[in-house]
Each structure stands twice: as structure tokens, then as C-alpha cells.
């Protein structure tokens, strides 16, 4: 392909400016960006509750539960996302489930982010003074309620910065789903590159858009953090 690019640059009229190109492909990039956001967002949201459950599993009293939780975490944190994506994508039809590529992509990313979010939540849970749990136990509050009404609300506020980082990571990793033919941002830029013979401009455009999305997420994260802090409910 790179040989074609070299030729293409000579053939394509140099009159087609960067601006013209961007205008022509803007709708495609916009659509690709939406798909990226949708895929990333779905994966993150899907992974949140299982991640909390996994975090409790990692700290469980039962050795078998802990072992299983550790195994899950170890695998999904210890293998590349691309490989996870390919395994999920090719495994599903084999066991009889046929899903569109986008769903397979969201599922793989969700399974992945569950492991990473679990680690984040676990650290947060362990930072909460144990006395709060004892006070709850003395009042007769059961484990389920202690976890979901006392521990989880505090944990989420505590680990918000780390979760924002994880969101940014998933957004970047979503670029890999282009290999299973999901038309997200990276795939759009690939299409533009091969159609226009202007790979530099195409990939730069994609890079800039990713940067903007990640920047927006970070800024939004800071804003949420500040609002929670002003509510006066984050101190330990």
C-alpha cells in the first residue's frame, strides 16, 4: 500500500488542499467518532457493576471465590486487548452465538475493562476505614447493604480520577476494533487514507479527534470531581 501512496501522491492533484479533504470527509469522521464514543461508553458502563462485584470477589473470605476472581483479573489484565478482541470475535460463532462485530467489540472491551475497574475499586474499598463497617455491623446492617449503600458510594467518589484514566484508555483501545471491521474513527481514517492517497492527513485528523475526545473526558472528570468535593462528601 505504501508504494501506492508514493505513486498516488504524484498522481493526485496537489490542488486538493487539506481543508477540502477535511470538508469532504467530515461527515464520515463525525460518524466514526460517534461509533467510537458509543462502543467505548457502552463497554465502560457494562463493565462497572461486574467490576464492583469482582472487586468484592477479590476480597472475599472464601478462597475459591478469591481464586476465581484473581484468575479472571490476571487473564484480562495480562493479555493484549487486540488478542482478547480476536478471541471473543472468533469464539462466539464457534459456541453458536452469532453477533454483529460491534457487539463482539463491546463485549470484549467490557470484559477487559471489568478487570481493570475491579482493581481500581478494590484499592478504593480498602482505603475506607474499617470502623465504618464495624459501626454498620453493630447497627445490624447486613453485608449486602454495607457494600452497596456505604462502601460503593464512597469508593466511586474516591477513585474517580483513576476511573477517568481508565475511560481514556478504553477510548484509545477502541481503535483496535477497526480490525474486526467496525467502522469507528480509526477505520474511517483508514478508508479516507486509501481513497484519497493522503495517509498523513487522514491519520493526523484521526489523532487530533482522539486527542480532543480524551481531553474532553479528562476535563469532564475534573468537573465532576470538583462538584462532588463541594458537596462536602468526599473526605474520610
Amino acid at each position, binding site marked *: 500500500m505504501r508504494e501506492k501512496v508514493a505513486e498516488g501522491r504524484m498522481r493526485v492533484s496537489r490542488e486538493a488542499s487539506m481543508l477540502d479533504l477535511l470538508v469532504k470527509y467530515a461527515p464520515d469522521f463525525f460518524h466514526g467518532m460517534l461509533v467510537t464514543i458509543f462502543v467505548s461508553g457502552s463497554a465502560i458502563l457494562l463493565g462497572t457493576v461486574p467490576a464492583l462485584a469482582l472487586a468484592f470477589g477479590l476480597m472475599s473470605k472464601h478462597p475459591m471465590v478469591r481464586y476465581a476472581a484473581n484468575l479472571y483479573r490476571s*487473564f484480562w489484565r495480562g*493479555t493484549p486487548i487486540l488478542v482478547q478482541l480476536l478471541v471473543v470475535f472468533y469464539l462466539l460463532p464457534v459456541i453458536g452465538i452469532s453477533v454483529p462485530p460491534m457487539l463482539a467489540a463491546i463485549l470484549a472491551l467490557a470484559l477487559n475493562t471489568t478487570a481493570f475497574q475491579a482493581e481500581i475499586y478494590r484499592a478504593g474499598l480498602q482505603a475506607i476505614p474499617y470502623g465504618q463497617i464495624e459501626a454498620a455491623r453493630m447497627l445490624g446492617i447486613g453485608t449486602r447493604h454495607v457494600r452497596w449503600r456505604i462502601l460503593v458510594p464512597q469508593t466511586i467518589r474516591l477513585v474517580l480520577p483513576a476511573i477517568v484514566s481508565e475511560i481514556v484508555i478504553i477510548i484509545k483501545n477502541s481503535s483496535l476494533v477497526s480490525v474486526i471491521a467496525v467502522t469507528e474513527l480509526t477505520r474511517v481514517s483508514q478508508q479516507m487514507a486509501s481513497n484519497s492517497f493522503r495517509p498523513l492527513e487522514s491519520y493526523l485528523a484521526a489523532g487530533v479527534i482522539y486527542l480532543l475526545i480524551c481531553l474532553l473526558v479528562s476535563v469532564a472528570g475534573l468537573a465532576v470531581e470538583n462538584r462532588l468535593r463541594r458537596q462536602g462528601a468526599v473526605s474520610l
Partner: protein
Amino acid sequence: MTTLDFIATYGPLLLSGLFATLRICFFASLIAIPLGLVVALLLRSRRAALRWIARAYVEVMRGTPILVVLFLLYYGGPSFGLVLEAEPVGILGLGLYGAGYFAEILRAGLQSIAQGQIEAARMLGIPAAHILWRIQLPQMLRLVVPPSINQIIVLIKESAALSIITVPELTKIGAQIANETFAVIQPYLAVALLYWLLIEILAALGHWLERKVRHA
């Protein structure tokens, strides 16, 4: 084919892919760590312009997917005179990308050393390079080793993306075997297990190193 047959037939090929991955990540780290150190020093520079450039570099690398970086270098490279084979491009891309992350790790490490020590050394007339090498770096090790090992592990995982620009590393080998045999589960699972093994070993090595450095 049965699992045993699979291992016998494709084992050596997969192992060669694993070594390719190791080799690539090794060289990428050779770029990423020193470059990261340079950027970290720039981040702490007194000249605002240098700090700004360094910060821009870090934010770009942290906000851009590795795949886009690789595409830019590999497919966009010829447009600005960079024509390299796939593997060198991969190493370069991974190295530049990793440097952005190492810069943050090393910056935090540099910051952890009390300014007073550096000022005392300067008052004694010791040159800056010497201060870096003999006073700052040795003390930083304790703080810097765990996240650095972690970052190397991240690089190994990110290196899988190199398969997309046709570098014959572990993931690409897996894809090739899948193509040949039309059996997709075995090759990709094998690839996953090999990465897993590699990373578990590295993580264990990291813990050992961490403990050694803590008691140094």
C-alpha cells in the same frame, strides 16, 4: 487438529513470534526510557517554552491510540521522508509512544527527591549531569521501578497492534496460523496464553526487583 498436534506443529513458530515480541519491546524500551527521561527533565525545566513542548508531547502520546501513531509513521511516513521496514517503524512508534508515559513516571521520581539535596550539590559546584547520575537517579529507583515494570508490561500488550502493520510478532503469527488452518480458537488462545505467561513472569520479576530496590 488435536491440541497436541497443534503444539507440535506450530509451537516453534509461536515461540519465534514470542521472541520477536520480546525483541521489539526491548528495543522500544531502549528508546522509550532515555527519551522519557529527557522529556521528564524538560517538564521540570525553568524555561516555560521547554516545559510546554514536553507537556504537549506527553499529552499527545497519552491521548492518541498506538494504532494511529503506527499508521502515521508507517503509511504517512513516506510523505515526510520516513521510509522504513515494518519492524523498525513498530519499534520507533512503540518507543515514541512509551516515552510519553515514562516521562510522567520519571518526572514523579525526580520530584520526589528533596530540592535541598540538589541545591547543596550545586553550591558545592557539582555539575548538573553528575548530580543527575549520582544523586537523583539512584534515589529515584525505589519510587520508579514498580511503575516502570508496569509500563513495560503495558508496552508488551500494546505491541500486539504492530501485527496490524504486518510486523511478524506474536499476534501476527497467530493470525497467520489461523488463516492457514481455518481453526481460529487454537492459535488465538495459544497466543493469549503465551502473552499471559510472559506478563506473569515479568510481573513476578517486577515484584522481586521491587523488594530488592526497597532494601537497597
